[in-house]
């Protein structure tokens, strides 16, 4: 690992790294030229398939396979939606790429659209990223002037329009079909699948939805090949595991000395990330827990920090998955009640309201946590929380999208892995009522506001 050379972040330290001139001086758009100079769309899809590149937005679906689902004989138009709605708590790697190397992203979009025969790409940028929006806008304008975006790109038959679409502060727009509904001008209610976007997506046309970091990897795979890409990361451990290949942008935040975004080969352990890159737990304190890959992935205890952060790792200790590979560290002073209250409040705020188990489950979880936090918890509440978390989501089959699974996992992990702390807190703060079995009194609005 010591010899790892940054790939995606190779340019970001240079002055004006966001400009076309600097990107091209570092070899930028060579991959596009290579593709347009003699590869077919199928060649590109096969190359990306053989690289093992998996989606970096959270679900880890193999990118080349996703591209291969688009019909090859469709009369068009075919759309690409670029998911730049990065909203998963603790995650900011897409922001770094868009602000500091937007041309790398655009080159990935161009190659991805060539491979999928898409004629228009929409980049859905979250409202909270104004600098990303401006940098992408400038980069697209530079590309238009240089013949890299628009009709007959670099004199070829390939044409592509790229448009930016600004979100309005809603987490659910990062779900691919929620994003599509939002793009179409509707409320961002995720769609029942199938049909998958590859068959019927934006404006009822075949659509590919890719994350910013996923696309940023593509030019490098074209330039350096699938074998080079597969030389980084963790190989497949069996037929059900597609492996975890390539570089990854790990985010680290919370109680560490050096929060930031670090590019490393997939498979580094959480402890290595915290200690070698994040500078260790701050203030000389001990660690207590960490979010493994964005809030919705659940919780590692400190003892689980040796888990590798590859696509298969976090699942082995009961977490939902690698997610966005964004780690948030909690030191020994953090109350798990406060952590879980914060998590439940987030998901209650962001549930889109379409599916009842999620709308009700997230808001009741928040209210129960608020009650516990205010010293009115009962031991029974822990079982109610586990019951709620076990019954909402795609996994139990009760919701359309995975938001509820993401809401459930912090509850499951926090209550199961830190049960003693929850029980002690409830007994200490509610000695008279902790064993009460009757329905609990509702809290007033004023208390709920805190």
């Amino acid at each position, binding site marked *: 690992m010591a010899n790892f050379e940054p790939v995606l972040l190779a340019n970001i330290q240079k002055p004006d790294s966001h400009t076309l001139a600097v990107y091209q001086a570092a070899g930028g758009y060579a991959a596009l030229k290579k593709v347009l100079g003699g590869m077919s769309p199928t060649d590109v899809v096969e190359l990306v398939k053989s690289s093992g590149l998996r989606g970096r937005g959270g679900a880890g679906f193999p990118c080349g396979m996703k591209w291969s689902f688009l019909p090859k004989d469709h009369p068009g*138009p075919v759309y690409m939606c670029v998911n730049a709605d*990065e*909203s*998963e*708590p*603790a*995650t*900011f790697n*897409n*922001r770094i790429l868009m602000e500091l190397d937007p041309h790398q992203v655009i080159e990935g979009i161009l190659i991805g659209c060539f491979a999928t025969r898409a004629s228009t790409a929409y980049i859905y940028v*979250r*409202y*909270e*990223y*104004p*600098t990303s929006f401006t940098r992408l806008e400038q980069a697209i304008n530079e590309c238009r002037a240089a013949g890299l975006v628009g009709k007959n790109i670099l004199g070829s038959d390939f044409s592509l*329009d790229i*448009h930016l*679409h*600004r*979100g*309005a*502060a*809603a*987490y659910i727009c990062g779900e691919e079909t929620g994003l599509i509904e*939002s*793009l*179409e*001008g*509707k*409320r*961002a209610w995720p769609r029942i699948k199938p049909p998958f976007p590859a068959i019927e997506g934006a*404006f009822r046309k075949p659509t590919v939805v890719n994350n910013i970091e996923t696309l940023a990897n593509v030019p490098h795979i074209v330039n350096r090949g699938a074998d080079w890409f597969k030389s980084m990361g963790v190989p497949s451990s069996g037929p059900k595991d597609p492996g975890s290949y390539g570089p990854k942008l790990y*985010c680290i*935040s*919370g*109680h560490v000395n050096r*929060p*930031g*975004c670090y590019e490393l080969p997939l498979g580094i352990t959480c402890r290595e990330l915290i200690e070698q890159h994040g500078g260790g737990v701050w203030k000389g304190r001990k660690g207590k827990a960490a*979010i493994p890959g964005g*809030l919705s992935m659940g919780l590692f205890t400190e003892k689980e920090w040796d888990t590798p952060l590859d696509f298969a790792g976090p699942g082995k200790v009961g977490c939902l998955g690698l997610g966005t590979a*964004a780690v*948030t560290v*909690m030191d020994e002073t*953090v109350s798990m009640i*406060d*952590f879980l209250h*914060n*998590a439940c409040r*987030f998901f209650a*705020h*962001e549930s*889109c309201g379409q599916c009842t188990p999620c709308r009700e489950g997230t808001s009741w979880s928040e209210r129960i946590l608020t009650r516990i936090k205010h010293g009115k918890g009962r031991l029974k509440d822990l079982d109610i929380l586990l019951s709620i978390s076990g019954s909402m989501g795609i996994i139990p089959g009760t919701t359309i999208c995975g938001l509820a699974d993401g809401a459930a996992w912090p509850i499951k992990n926090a209550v199961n892995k830190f049960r003693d702390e929850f029980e002690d807190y409830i007994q200490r703060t509610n000695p008279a009522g902790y064993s009460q079995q009757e329905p609990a009194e509702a809290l007033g609005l004023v208390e709920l506001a805190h």
Partner: protein
Amino acid sequence: MRAEIEAFFPRYPTKQAVTLPALHVVNEHLRCVPLRAIPEIARMLELAPAEIYDTLSFYGFFKASPCGKVRAWVCRSISCALRGGEEVLAGLSEKLGVAPGETTADGTITLEFGECLGLCDYAPAMLAGNRVYKNMSVEQVDDVAARLREQAEGTT
């Protein structure tokens, strides 16, 4: 505003897709989307006003009466909360004399809580207009409030 909205039409295969861009155009000019704008947008996009309102109301983002010159989002999600984000939000709320979601009496600043702003490397953080306030602390609340007022004065 109409011309700005119409400029979006060629980008999309449907006029309905211009709903969010149109709402943003109105919001940028008026710092809100007043109810009377809804039938006008609906006519331009050949939709029922209820369809525009359905989309508008889904996002908590668009308000019916004007925000302040600066709208400041203080992050309350986990990475910021661990480093004092909620205390900063409470401190600013007290200093400015408004609850999150409200605008100061002089109409300069709207304070909001934000859910993860993607600024976790600068936690606790705030996004005010296009400006990012990094690594705030509760001790700096007076200073942050003063900088917000300065920022608002520079805004037309």
